[in-house]
């Protein structure tokens, strides 16, 4: 039973990373209509920036985490300006943005690989709160606890921001119809930039926390998050922060439990089958009401 409880916490912590990643990914998709294949590279970049802040500059971990998150946000904004803005100006469709995001993904992944010297680095044990916490029979790493808390806090904050604030209303307006939003006094360019920043920051948070949890600072960090985070977005629904969070955590738990009680070779198969299943069984529910685009 203690093993089950331990694995449940492990699954939650892993799922929290997927959830954090999925929140930003879904945000960009809902607001900007972009499937951003480069979203995972923000996570890698944040981890690398935070690592060098700790390793080369001796910055304390909480500050390094903020630096990493900020770096990811700025990177996301830069990618948006370089890879997506020109297409927006041309009125290019979603296919074009998908392809430029793949291009950005290739470029950033390779630069990240160069930055870490083609290997995986990790934060020195002494640099972050690394001990174990024992709650009764359950044992988990301190950082796992922080990760779950961070995910919960970000979920609540983002939900309130999107559903309750003026800015959130502007975001939803741009997502619905950019031209109409502009007419009603929203500055779409500002909303787009802010969305990119927010998405980059959440992905960056997932990156730094994930780098600590998995002792992996390299480009593979973002790639690993990418596929699972993407599954979480689809399963949870891209336009609802709570959905992404729940689905991300659920996927993490399913993965861990599958490996523990079934077989790790089934693990990815189950995740992707779940992804495909949701796409098929809830296509309209996920895509909204495109009443007569289907002939």
């Amino acid at each position: 039973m203690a093993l089950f409880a331990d694995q449940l916490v492990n699954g939650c912590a892993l799922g929290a990373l997927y959830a954090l990643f999925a929140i930003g990914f879904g945000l960009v998709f809902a607001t900007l209509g972009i499937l951003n294949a480069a979203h995972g590279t923000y996570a890698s970049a944040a981890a690398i920036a935070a690592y060098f802040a700790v390793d080369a500059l001796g910055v304390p971990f909480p500050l390094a985490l903020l630096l990493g998150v900020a770096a990811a946000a700025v990177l996301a904004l830069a990618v948006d300006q370089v890879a997506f803005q020109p297409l927006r100006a041309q009125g290019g469709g979603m296919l074009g943005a998908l392809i430029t995001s793949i291009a950005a993904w290739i470029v950033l992944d390779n630069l990240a690989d160069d930055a870490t010297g083609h290997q995986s680095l990790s934060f020195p044990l002494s640099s972050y709160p690394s001990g174990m916490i024992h709650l009764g029979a359950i044992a988990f790493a301190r950082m796992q606890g922080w990760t779950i808390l961070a995910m919960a806090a970000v979920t609540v904050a983002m939900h309130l921001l999107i559903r309750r604030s003026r800015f959130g209303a502007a975001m939803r307006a741009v997502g619905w119809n950019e031209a109409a939003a502009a007419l009603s006094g929203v500055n779409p360019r500002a909303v787009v930039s802010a969305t990119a920043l927010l998405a980059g920051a959440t992905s960056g948070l997932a990156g730094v926390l994930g780098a600590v949890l998995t002792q992996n600072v390299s480009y593979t960090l973002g790639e690993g998050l990418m596929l699972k985070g993407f599954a979480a977005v689809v399963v949870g629904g891209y336009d609802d922060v709570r959905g992404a969070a729940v689905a991300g955590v659920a996927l993490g738990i399913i993965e861990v439990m599958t490996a523990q009680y079934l077989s790790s070779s089934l693990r990815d198969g189950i995740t992707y089958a779940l992804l495909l299943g949701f796409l098929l069984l809830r296509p309209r529910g996920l895509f909204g009401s495109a009443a007569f685009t289907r002939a």
Partner: protein
Amino acid sequence: MIRYLAAGAALLLAATAEAAPLAPGTYTVGFVSEVTGPVAFAGLSYLHGATLAAAEINDAFYLGSGVRIAVAEKNSGSDAARTIQDATQFIADRSVIAVTCCILSAVAASVKPITINAGMPLVIYGATMPGLPAPPLVYSMTVLPGPKDTATALAVAGAVKPKTVAYFLAADNDAFKGRMAATRTALEAAHVTTAGVVSVLTSDTDFTAAATQAMGMNPDAILIYTTQAPAVGIIAALRQRGYTATIVGNDVLSPVSVFRKLGPAVVGVPFPIGFSADLAATPAARDFVAAYTAQFKTAPDIYSAQGYEAIWFIAQGLKAAGGTPTRDSLAAALAAQKEVEHNVYGGEPIVGGQIDTTGTLIVAWSPDGRLVPWSGAP
């Protein structure tokens, strides 16, 4: 310089008893490198080792005066298609007499039939899949890790006396599957019970759950049969979660980057190694370490040694072929070689095109980041 000459002279006496001297000229070896892509960190070491070997061979006039060996490099980025293109370009280039390549087993398996079909001698420098060598055309300069793993596991079991052990296995890597199976059989024959096998995938990054799973089996020791990134992640997760008993690693733990990354977590973890700059035992090995460190500002690793051996082995074959060697005569000459004469392992017999080393060197990282012989302590 003088020591090269001395080494060269000694080998000259040993190896060229009957062969005619080589016709003057430059003999080119096609080297398919992997200096970009997923295994670039090792790819560079192989290439450096190979270029150092060629320089030594030429400086020592090992092949005779006016005879030089050249290494022509083409980068493949570890992509099978690119490797094949590079290999066919070497095959088409009449001045190339042999090709050496491949870290990844799948890439090596793709290139092998093409070079065999073209009658081109192929020396594989990195891939560990058993069964790749096929004399007279295909040779492997990689010491097969499986037997060394088993020997290490038995030695550790003898010292630590575990009742039960758990295994970590990279389930999507066939080589490791075979290595684990052989070790498991040997350990079970020595009455060490298997508590369980935790499967991971080579692309995994999170090992907290896997570590929890293994520790839930309460093993007296844990043996790791995965590629480098998972092995590092598993050791880190196990130690973080408070596992203090014996962990047995494998040769992927040898690069110094692993120590830099894991620090105290990996100290004392035993694993077998074919070559270590810290433990260079023979004069040839010490010379290699010194020359390599002087030229590349870093100590050679196991990969550097394999790249180095590959070129020396081809040179040895060229010398044995004598006259004006062709790809055919080189192949025939390589097939006749019983060992790699200029080696850094302290003995390197060749059986069926596959090299081996005598004995098993079991090492562990010391707290100050050097490889030292394993002390036998848990």
